[in-house]
């Protein structure tokens, strides 16, 4: 028993620390194998990764930029950059988080280019208290969507999220729509976990406040 333990320890110490950590933690994410194959020159492995994540990258870019053509360009650029920088991916984070991080940077850069007079960053507009204190306490209809067609509803949701500052919009998109964890969101945005939490709270409350105009229960006859 003692011998066995010792030999295991010895085996592990021969390995690089990040491999040891991987062995001791969860089984490796299936993406890692694809990444390794892609690094070795297998473009079909990389194509598989593109297939897996292009939707998420496109939606993230479109949410941040609010522009479809930009989102298409960004999606291409993100995967091309990822392909070229594949050697820099060390596997310390999920491959998808790494991609999202590139997508966020590309999207913010695109926004900055478009609005030359305004600075756009993750820190923008976080000083304001706007929307962080709820004012509308009306209940919503049991099914808030019931008064709108699918296309009307899509328009409401688009307009509403477009009205948020980019920093809030991005946090809400990653955390609540794309379902990244708080830690993954922080990593993708280069923010601390508390900063993500505070932006997320404000984003949710501002969206709630704005949607309330459409979805609140009202007296009969009025919308």
């Amino acid at each position, binding site marked *: 028993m003692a011998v066995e333990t010792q030999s295991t320890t010895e085996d592990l110490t021969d390995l690089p620390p990040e491999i040891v950590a991987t062995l001791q933690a969860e089984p490796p994410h299936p993406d890692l194998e694809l990444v390794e194959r892609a690094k070795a020159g297998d473009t079909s492995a990389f194509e598989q990764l593109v*297939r897996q994540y*292009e939707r998420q990258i496109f939606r993230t870019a479109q*949410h941040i930029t609010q522009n479809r053509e930009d989102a298409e360009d960004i999606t*291409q650029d993100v995967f091309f950059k990822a392909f070229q920088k594949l050697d820099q991916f060390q596997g310390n984070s999920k491959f998808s988080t790494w991609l999202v991080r590139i997508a966020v940077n590309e999207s913010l850069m695109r926004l900055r280019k478009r609005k030359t007079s305004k600075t756009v960053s993750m820190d923008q507009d976080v000083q304001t208290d706007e929307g962080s204190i709820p004012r509308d*306490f009306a209940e919503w209809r049991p099914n808030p969507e019931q008064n709108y067609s*699918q296309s009307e509803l899509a328009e409401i*949701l688009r307009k509403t999220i477009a009205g948020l500052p980019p920093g809030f919009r991005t946090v809400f998109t990653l955390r*609540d729509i794309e379902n990244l964890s708080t830690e993954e969101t922080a990593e993708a945005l280069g923010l601390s976990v508390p900063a993500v939490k505070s932006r997320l709270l404000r984003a949710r409350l501002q969206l709630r406040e704005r*949607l309330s105009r459409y979805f609140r229960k009202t007296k009969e006859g009025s919308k």
Partner: protein
Amino acid sequence: MNCTDFLAKLTDYFDGQIDPELLIEVKEHLGSCHHCEVVVDTTRKTIDIYRGHQPYEFPEELSERLRTAVMNRCKASVSK
């Protein structure tokens, strides 16, 4: 716990990352404060609506077009 304290805990409450003792206080406040109860309910609906209605379409045609373009760029960069 007042409404401001409650709001400060809202994100942790939604994410289920809250100490059991604090959770008792949060629930007590929710039970006695209609405003915060509405805020919780409508915020949850806000998240659900955005999750349930992806406002941006991503049709197969676009997916294929983007993927083809990306792979052509990647392959061209390797063969250089």
